[in-house]
């Protein structure tokens, strides 16, 4: 599927700010399931744009605006070719939870089994996870149950949480947006020893009535490691196994690693922040 994404972020400051340093993670990855044909990231006021790959393998755009400015506009336009990444008739069942011991020390998995900034492994979370797991012995089955549990029992509501809401809080309040759902699901997976990472990206809502959640904004979900098969994406916000409708921007331990826009500056808080995401399907 060929998808085009236009992602605009517009900050307006009440009075001029200066010395703004920013990092953007807005360029989709190219991997086995998706190929980023082109991506243009532009900012205003104009700045020199530099790129580097971070420790998680995500592409980062870096820029600084030393002069005074009272607005900052960040736009990213990308064209991505996505592949079918799961066979819905043939999910990777049959890998036992016990066998995960073999991968827990591997550098590819280890960071995704630990506590991280927004995700804790603690007794409360562990108890919840054990309840959700019930008598399942299978990695994919268990991860799927966790996704379903969150989808069915958590309330999707905007503006009750912030970008800095911790997974512990979400597990308690049982509500939030895609970021919170992903954090909560990751916490439960990690408690059971399933390597789980946070993914930021977009998705194309192919339903006729646009009934999916989170399509008009940047989206987030999780990926779990099924040893022998690789990483599988699960979207607890929509109770859906990640397929070619999804575009991955980057992945990391939690939101901190892949926040689309981060930075610092001198000056007052923004008086307004507008974000718009449009995902269009193109002719193949």
């Amino acid at each position, binding site marked *: 599927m060929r998808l085009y994404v236009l992602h605009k972020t517009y900050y307006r400051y009440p009075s001029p700010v200066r010395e703004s340093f920013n990092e953007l993670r807005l360029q989709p990855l190219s991997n086995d399931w998706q190929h980023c044909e082109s991506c*243009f990231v532009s900012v205003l006021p104009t700045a020199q744009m530099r790129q580097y790959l971070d420790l998680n393998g995500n592409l980062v755009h870096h820029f600084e605006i030393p002069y005074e400015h009272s607005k900052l506009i960040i736009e990213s336009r990308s064209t991505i070719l996505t592949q079918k990444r799961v066979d819905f008739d043939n999910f990777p069942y049959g890998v036992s939870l016990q066998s995960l011991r073999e991968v827990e020390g591997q550098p590819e998995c280890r960071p995704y089994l630990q506590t991280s900034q927004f995700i804790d492994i603690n007794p409360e979370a562990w108890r919840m996870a054990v309840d959700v797991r019930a008598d399942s012995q299978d990695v994919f089955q268990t991860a799927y149950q966790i996704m379903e549990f969150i989808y069915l029992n958590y309330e999707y509501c905007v503006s009750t949480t912030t970008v800095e809401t911790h997974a512990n809080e979400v597990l308690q309040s049982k509500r939030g947006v895609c970021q919170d759902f992903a954090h909560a699901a990751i916490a439960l997976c990690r408690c059971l020893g399933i390597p789980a990472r946070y993914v930021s990206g977009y998705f194309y809502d192919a339903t006729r009535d646009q009934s999916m959640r989170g399509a008009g904004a940047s989206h987030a979900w999780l990926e779990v490691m099924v040893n022998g098969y690789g990483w599988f994406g699960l979207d607890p916000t929509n109770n859906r196994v990640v397929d070619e409708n999804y575009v991955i921007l980057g992945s990391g331990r939690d939101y901190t690693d892949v926040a689309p826009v981060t930075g610092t500056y001198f000056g007052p808080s923004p008086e307004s922040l507008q974000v718009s995401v449009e995902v269009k399907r193109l*002719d193949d």
Partner: protein
Amino acid sequence: MQNELFTSYETDVFFDEMFGSDGIAPLDHYRSILNRLKSLEPTQIEEKQKQADSSFLEHGVTFTVYGDDEGTERIFPFDLIPRVIPDKEWQKVEQGLRQRILALNLFLNDVYHDGKIMAEGVVPEEVVKSSAHYRQEMVGFDVPRDIFVHICGTDLIRDETGRYLVLEDNARCPSGASYLLENREIMKKTFPGTYQAMSVRSVEAYPELLLRSLEFLSPRQSQKPVCVLLTPGVYNSAYFEHTFLARQMGIEIVEGKDLIAIDGHVYMRTTHGLVQVDVIYRRLDDAFLDPLFFEEDSLLGVSGLMDAYLKGNVALANGIGTGVVDDKVTYAYVPEMIRFYLGQDPILEQVPTYLCWNDQDRDYVLNNLSELVVKSANESGGYGMLVGSASTKKEREEFAQMIQASPRDYIAQPIISLSRHPTFCENGIEGRHVDLRPFILYGEDIEIVPGGLTRVALKKGSLVVNSSQGGGSKDTWVLKD
């Protein structure tokens, strides 16, 4: 039954759009149209050509040639054989164009604000400030939606290997979109079956996309924006296009005298009284827009228009001062702009350019005039240019003098063997050089209708495709995959 149209067709040393670089077998994407052409009786071809020509006359698709004592209005010659571009090839071109228009807009924003790219020494400040179309008045002004170039016509050529190269950008008032639309209309009537069978991507959305890009600029977003097209008048070479686009968009076409600026707002005189105007699609160069700011004796503009523009009460498309990027000296720096603002390499390459302004380059140019094309930095339409290989000694000497007198005004480029395309000529089908002008619209997002206007140099061996220099055009078919 096959006619003999292509039996003596020669591709010579050029890249041929239909037969590629080896010139033996037709490229896959041309097979259907080639078969159709071969199946035609000679009388049918003649009939189709006549039918097409008369449609153009009936539709009034004409242009005016300047500097010609007869001052004639001519029909833009049209060739029946369409240029075909496969989807994959087009996708790359399209992405290259998006990248380019983003960089050009960032550059203009930068030039009229902080000037970072000059401070970093990537583009010399003197090049920018000495550009004939640099507008001091725009310094510090935030143009509506921060977009300077809303409509850009970027000319592409293909070299002997078939590689697409950017030849120039037209970021002021690019013409030709009406021919692109008319050509398509006529091809649909002339080859309805082939057109259908080849699943050609449609271009008909252009007027609607253009109108949307204009409306996006309106300072009064709460109501239906009033957009107008400002024309220099009936004597302008592109007047047909102005009327055509205004009609297609359903907006008023006005001349300067139809508008009046009062207290920093612009109004249109109508039979119902004055109507406030939000967006002006101006097909008039900066210098003529407002006699109070620019050319004092301009009768085409509107006094007070600049004041309203700088107060943000009316939007202009394109913005003022965009000519800096049309300057062929600035053009040489576009790849660096892309690297600077977007942090990536250009997708589309461009023609290597020698800047006579630079001592080393100038020496080279003066010593190799017969192998180069010399162009005036700020002329368009194929005026003020020397094709070294086809020039006389006297012409070269004249150019050498002009270059030495004002080096900033000239650039030189190697002569590129433009690709050729089979074209109906007096003696049957022959290869003629072509270029491609896609139209890029930049409103809420960047939109490019698939393909563009293919211009063809009808004179045998000529490399100049401009309509004012005896060029014609073809329809351009971008195929769905």
